[in-house]
């Protein structure tokens, strides 16, 4: 059934209102612009970068920033500017994938624990509390060491799994609030199964906190991927990943500061700007 023409549905009005509010916030605009820039770089980096980031090593070694190489060159004679431009690719693949994994798993867990309560909820909630007590990086390093693999896939899964309880906790709280509303009882009283009630009745109503949680977690995920990569796990050279570059050159920071500073600034800009967008989204939804 098509909605009555001329009068948009309330949900669409609310959506439009939210979008307008987002666009009106300057910090969100700046954040979105920078994040958008890095996404474009990740997609079309080869075309934007003046030189090949990996194989074009014909330049003078370790040259400080010049007109030809605004970010200087590294010890292998590669253009740092080109490497920074292309360096967002891996982290922008791994971090969202990890966050998405964590969000999906966390949402499932939060729905189940919040909907069924009881012993399952008690046990899972204690585990969640225990995980929350440890810093993310510590857990990640522990697991990476334990499984003894450094592939990006492993890092993706680990970050996703570590995020799961965090997101589950938020979703569970939202589900608990929903569970007190009578429409849940009404659905059960017409003979709906638990799956239907959870997915069709409750889930659409807890989407706003899930979206907020996703964007907030994304910032953390980028930072976590960068940290793990810096520590030598995750994304490996010769990828021009920012954190991988820092890992490679941090002991040369004096006097070759440009090899570390520009990738580091790039990471900072991405994390900060993702958070600016996340804050804006949270504000609009709350």
């Amino acid at each position, binding site marked *: 059934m098509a909605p009555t023409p001329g009068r948009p549905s309330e949900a669409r009005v609310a959506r439009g209102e939210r979008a307008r509010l987002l666009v009106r916030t300057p910090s969100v605009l700046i954040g979105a612009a920078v994040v958008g820039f890095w996404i474009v770089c990740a997609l079309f980096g080869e075309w934007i970068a003046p030189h090949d980031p990996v194989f074009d090593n014909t330049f003078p070694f370790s040259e400080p920033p010049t007109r030809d190489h605004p970010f200087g060159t590294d010890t292998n004679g590669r253009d740092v500017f080109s490497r920074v431009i292309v360096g967002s690719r891996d982290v922008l693949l791994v971090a969202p994938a990890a966050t998405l994994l964590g969000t999906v798993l966390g949402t499932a867990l939060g729905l189940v624990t919040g909907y069924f309560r009881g012993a399952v909820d008690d046990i899972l909630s204690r585990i969640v509390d225990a995980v929350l007590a440890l810093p993310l990086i510590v857990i990640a390093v522990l697991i990476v060491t334990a499984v003894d693999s450094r592939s990006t896939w492993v890092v993706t899964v680990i970050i996703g799994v570590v995020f799961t309880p965090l997101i589950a906790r938020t979703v569970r709280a939202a589900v608990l609030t929903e569970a007190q509303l009578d429409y849940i009882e*009404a659905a059960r009283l017409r003979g709906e199964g638990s799956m239907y009630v959870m997915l069709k009745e409750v889930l659409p109503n807890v989407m706003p906190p899930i979206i907020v949680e996703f964007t907030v977690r994304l910032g953390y995920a980028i930072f976590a991927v960068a940290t793990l990569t810096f520590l030598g796990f995750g994304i490996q050279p010769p990828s021009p990943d920012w954190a991988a570059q820092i890992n490679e050159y941090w002991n040369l920071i004096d006097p070759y500061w440009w090899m570390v500073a520009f990738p580091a600034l790039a990471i900072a800009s991405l994390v900060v700007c993702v958070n600016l967008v996340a804050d804006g989204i949270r504000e609009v939804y709350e």
Partner: protein
Amino acid sequence: MTAAPTTTALSVRDLDVVYRVRGHDRQVLRGVTLEIAPGESYGLVGESGCGKSTAALAIVQYLPPNGRVTGGAITVAGQDVVGMRGRSLRRYRAGTVSMVYQNPGAALNPALRIGRQVVEAFTIRGVPRGEAAARARDALALVQIADPGSVLERYPHQLSGGMQQRVVIAMALAKNPELLILDEPTTGLDATVEAEVLDLVAGLQRELHTTVLFISHNLGVIAKMCSRVGVLYAGRLVEEGPVETVLEDPRHPYTVGLLRCIPRGGVRKDHGRLDTIPGSPPSLGDEISGCVFTARCALADDRCRVEEPPLIAVGAAHESRCWYHERAPDLPRAEAVDVALPAVDRSGDPLVECEDLGKIFQQRGHEVHALSGVSAAVWPGETLGLVGESGSGKTTFARLLLGIVPPTTGAVQLDGRELAPRYRKRSREDIRALQIVFQNPDSALNRRHGVRRILLRSLRKLAGVSGAEAERRLADLASRVRITERTLTQKPVQLSGGLKQRVAIARAFAGDPRLVVCDEPTSALDVSVQAAILNLLVELQAEKRVAYLFISHDLGVVRYISDRIAVLYLGRLQELGPAEVVFEGPHHPYTEALLSAVPTIDGGGRERIKLEGEIPSAASPPSGCVFHTRCPRKLGPICELEEPPLVEAEPAHFMRCHIPIDELRRLQSKEPQETPA
């Protein structure tokens, strides 16, 4: 202070208030003018959205950030209030005006002890701390709190709603205000508690000569509390006058309609349909030309559409904003009276029956007897009204019938067959036979689902139809509950409260239920909408022979719709009988107290029977008769030791009391025998 000699405590002149929404100013109050003399009690009534609370907020200069006064003046005790800010505003709020809100739980800080909060009410006016503590104690004694010392030591959540509201009133009176504003102060409270709080406020007002602005949607409360009343509609004062005059001889079509919507004076569903006010009030900020009520008025003509009537004097101090005020009392009915209700046939087998139904909840190691030994039956096409204060087990009873919670003792029977204790185990046939309409349609309808989706899903699950057949049934269902094709395409947020409740009713009726639990289905609605919903329920009953279990705290509503009434107290059935008999008496002492607590529009009424103390905890119910701790007619030790059985005191009238029915009849006939609303 610039206190000039004045004869009014509050004077509001041509007050205009707008709210700015999405960049547009929307007018909420339109030139409201009213005056309250010192010591007078003035009532402001109207349905939700008419601007009652906005008026109060404007008077205390506490409008939300998007609201502002665009015209007119407010003077309280000689002080010009509009535009007041900074220190003078602080001084005004601290010393001149007090406000009591609807929800006392939200008015008290949950993290601070009562004592600290009450003391602060004094110290803010410069009373020394040492003296303030003593004054706080006196203030609580003044609002009839029996043990002020211990209450001062407690936190708000440790007090009942009635006690919280007393504390708030004590704080409001601490500064001996020139004007006390009470905004729906008893709306969330039980009838017996409400009666006590109202008695208290009335007593204090007499004693202290406080000027009171009393805001309420409940005309009965206004009748009891106020000497003059103003009726607000769409931000306009449409009628004003002495309470008795306005309520007995209303001269504005809106007031007339409002009074007709309310089931009162013992009117019952077989006497005819309730009248309603057609249409709905204008939305916030609608441009209105002429009289604000034109769109819904049966008397309106071209003059009303063009020319707005002034307040016209229609009697002694009685004004109405209507060109045709002399015809207003004869306003044509919006609803035909006719109703054909087949009589309930109780010779056959009951539809739903329960024997010794009980429920014990485990709460932190305590056993809470939410319901004990309830035996009752409902016949096809019958309405069983269920009344009692909160905590009496009404909702638990309904949930046991529906199988939302399993009973601890007893079982529910449908057509003589025992039903599974939980709905999960019940067949689709059984599930569709018992349905529910919840109190709050906002909570009962999934806000992400469209009306059409909600109803189609119910048809599919309850009636087992889909495709073209479902579409046909949907159209039929929609026309039965009077929702339009357009409503079907909308989401719940886009609908008014009444429409939402219609959707909820349609959902319950999707599978042709045999008994529908109505859990306070109209308590969240305005009276004009309530009347339409009650009419709809009665219509559906006449058509489908459906039975209702009707839960409500509004005794007028229960009396209107019920064939028989069950009275619960602390999870025990105290009285069960035909509606007329239960209301006319002789009644159980508890029923008697409940009835006497209801403020009536018709004034007078019976003498209030005060109930001592609060409902005992269901975790440790009193021995013997559970009501003995509060019973005004307690006989003696027998009541404390022995629980009276539920006996058929007269044909079809069951009662649980040691006092013989003839004795009750004698005792109760001594008092003026007036029927409540």
